[in-house]
């Protein structure tokens, strides 16, 4: 698995970059929300309308990926520090990766279906 052969410093570079990236996208995401009054922004029609905007969809997808990578790597770090048996370490690496892919896939499904409506 490629993640296993990455040096820890490379993983942390990714962690920081995805953190900064997430910051960037979340900022835009929130700006989008703030254009409209809070109550309205989350109405179904508005949301669906947003999903038809290609740029917004790309933004959402990237945000999804970045935050997932950042967040699940963070979780991996915490779990690694908890217990140090080879078994535990490989299990959590696999589980965290799987969960990450799962969340990304699930979110992507929403985005695809949402934008395809």
């Amino acid at each position, binding site marked *: 698995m490629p993640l296993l052969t990455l040096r820890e410093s490379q993983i942390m570079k990714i962690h920081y970059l995805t*953190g900064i990236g997430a910051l960037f996208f979340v900022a835009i995401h929130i700006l989008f929300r703030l254009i409209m009054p809070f109550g309205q922004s989350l109405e179904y029609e508005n949301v669906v309308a947003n999903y038809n905007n290609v740029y917004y969809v790309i933004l959402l997808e990237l945000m999804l990926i970045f935050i997932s990578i950042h*967040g699940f790597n963070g979780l991996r770090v915490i779990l690694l520090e908890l217990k140090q048996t080879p078994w535990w370490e490989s299990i959590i690496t696999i589980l965290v990766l799987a969960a990450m892919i799962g969340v990304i896939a699930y979110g992507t499904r929403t985005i695809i*279906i949402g934008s395809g409506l």
Partner: protein
Amino acid sequence: MDLKSGDNDNSEINPSGKVRIDDGREGLKGWLNPTRYGWERVSYWLQRLTGVGLLIYFIGHVYETSSLVNGIDAWNSMLELTQTTGGHIFLMLVIGASTFHTVNGIRLIFTESGIGLGKPGRPDYPYDATSLNYKQKSGIWVAIILAIIAMLYGGMVMFGDAS
């Protein structure tokens, strides 16, 4: 605490050391000891806590938005969950957490790249660690203060909206 012989090397030898000793590691309690060692320790602890909190929220959020595909009713029923007082408080926490985590995260990205810590030099008694300098401490305070402001602002918007 068992050491494999490879770890032990020759640093210290206790060939007949068949003594029972206690592991002594503090375990999770060691993490949850945020106040005794100064602000940096508080920051460490909050960054962790907010990180995990945000991750949980994020997963929930991805799940929440997925109701989009099931049509307007499903979406609205999801949305209602957040329109309660409890939901508002939860969202306030998320806002606070993300503000703190972001601001402090940016600070950490700098410090963990060795920026803003000062230079090593001959320490003079009484020793004050240069890395625990004012800049760093203010960074933490700023993150906490901003988080509180963001929470209050978010609360005002949400509760103001609901009434």
